[in-house]
């Protein structure tokens, strides 16, 4: 049953993940400074700049500063973007231009190993990026510990969810230019309307329901709760949504890639 849905996955997916890690380990230093500085810039701009206008927010009967409100949302957005961009643009380049997947498929690796390795790598990128952001934001005193440490495994789960979605688009879209479409229709609306920069309660009722269908909404809610240090049972619903989304989208991505590469 599982094999019919996702194909022949073996431990060998790690080989694909290792390949990407080998490449990453040669170039990560170039990306390090931006990953640490960018969140700080956002915090200064939105938190200090915009925060001065907004003042404080009342959430679940608590008063929090605007900067404290958006800091976890920025982490969640980073989680989404790292995996999504890794498994769209970067995976597409490996698949289409570099023919890396073709070479892998002439070895004992199966297609399912290759795609799983790519998605797990995308999730790893999310976890690395989230960790760097925690490091950068911690000095501002905006994170409660130790619960904030749980953001790292959460980033991995969120990475698998958004990476699988990205991989589905990689299986469907004919050219690399067309990734503008899912970015415009999927990523940008989520970035703006998932309770990231203002509470969902500020939206009309119907839009609040619509926002609940977006995976980022749930990722933001869990991340925020973890950084606030408020672990509550209703978070399990958010978690269940993310897991459910992944369980649905991962086999769809696998199916599309199978059609695209092997037919």
């Amino acid at each position: 049953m599982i094999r019919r849905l996702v194909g022949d996955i073996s431990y060998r997916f790690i080989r694909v993940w290792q390949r990407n890690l080998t490449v990453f380990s040669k170039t990560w230093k170039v990306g390090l400074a931006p990953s640490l500085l960018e969140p700080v810039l956002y915090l200064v701009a939105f938190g200090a700049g915009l925060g001065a206008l907004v003042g404080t927010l009342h959430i679940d009967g608590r008063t929090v500063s605007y900067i404290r409100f958006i800091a976890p949302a920025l982490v969640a957005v980073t989680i989404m973007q790292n995996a999504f961009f890794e498994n769209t643009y970067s995976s597409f380049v490996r698949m289409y231009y570099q023919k890396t997947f073709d070479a892998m498929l002439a070895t004992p690796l199966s297609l399912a190993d290759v795609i799983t390795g790519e998605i797990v790598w995308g999730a790893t990128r999310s976890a690395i990026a989230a960790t760097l952001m925690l490091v950068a934001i911690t000095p501002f005193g905006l994170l409660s510990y130790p619960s904030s440490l749980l953001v790292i495994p959460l980033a991995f789960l969120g990475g698998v969810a958004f990476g699988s979605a990205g991989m589905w688009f990689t299986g469907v879209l004919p050219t690399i230019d067309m990734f503008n479409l899912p970015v415009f229709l999927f990523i940008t609306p989520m970035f703006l309307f998932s309770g990231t920069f203002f509470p969902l309660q500020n939206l009309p009722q119907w839009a609040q329901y619509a926002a609940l269908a977006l995976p980022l909404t749930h990722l933001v809610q869990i991340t925020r709760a973890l950084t606030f240090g408020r672990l509550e049972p209703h978070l399990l619903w958010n978690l269940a949504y993310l897991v459910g989304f992944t369980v649905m989208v991962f086999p769809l991505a696998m199916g599309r890639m199978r059609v695209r590469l092997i037919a």
Partner: protein
Amino acid sequence: MRTSPSEQRVVVEAVDLVKSFGDLRAVDGVSFRVEPGLCFGMLGPNGAGKTSTIRMIYGYSPITSGRLEVFGLDVTGQRRAVAQRIGVCQQENNLDPDLTVAENLMVFARYFDIPQAEAATRADEALSFIALAHRRDSGVSELSGGMMRRLVLARALINRPDLLILDEPTTGLDPQARHQVWDRVDELRERGLTVILTTHYMEEAEQLCDRLVIMDHGRILVEGAPTELIREHAGRLVIEITSPRDELRAYVRDKGLPFEDLGHRLLVYGDDNDAVFHRISEDYCDGGCVLRMATLEDVFLKLTGRELRE
């Protein structure tokens, strides 16, 4: 190293093998056997079904119908076990541009679960085999086309395969680079490695292949050793006459000689053409005529026709 009789069995056995893509039957019921230690060639124009056939052999694309066994294993059920023992040079240079020359080999070795220490030894061996040891830390994009092809070959050898598959290994190379690749393949053949080669260079097939099939439209037209095929389908010698006159055409027809009329050129095939050649060169040869050995190219063009495949 001598192989024991039990290992001497057929390397690839295909029976009524079919590959369809929608309505297109890319491979339309082919049967062939590849014997151990031989170089088996697959010739054919573009779209003949060569690449589709070999992709099924190394388990990249599932077979539509028929039977296909490699090393006595069913490729459908035991894809990983089969792939573990095959080395493949695909048509495109799909080396990893994000990695150096040596890293390309090391990372590829991991796909076969070769321990890294062992992989390092093999990578060194492979790099000296293809004369690229001095470029081990270069980026792939800094290499010439011939170097890239050799590196693809080295990469295909990293798992010490029992079967090497070369899909158009010298397409796009200059003559020097092509001969270097041929040399390497020749050496591997002498070591007893079984090789499957697809090509549309007749010279390459004549030089490297012990046996070959000529394919077109997904089917095998003929199979045999290159010299056999030439003798059988083109004879020993060919007379090529430029700008032939109609009297010559009449003469050839009268004599009942096998010939091919290309308009501005006439080809006369035969086993014992010396006498005919003298007659033709004395009486009918104003534009120029040549007596030459028949080649595989004659056979190929005779069987697959001369119209362009685009």
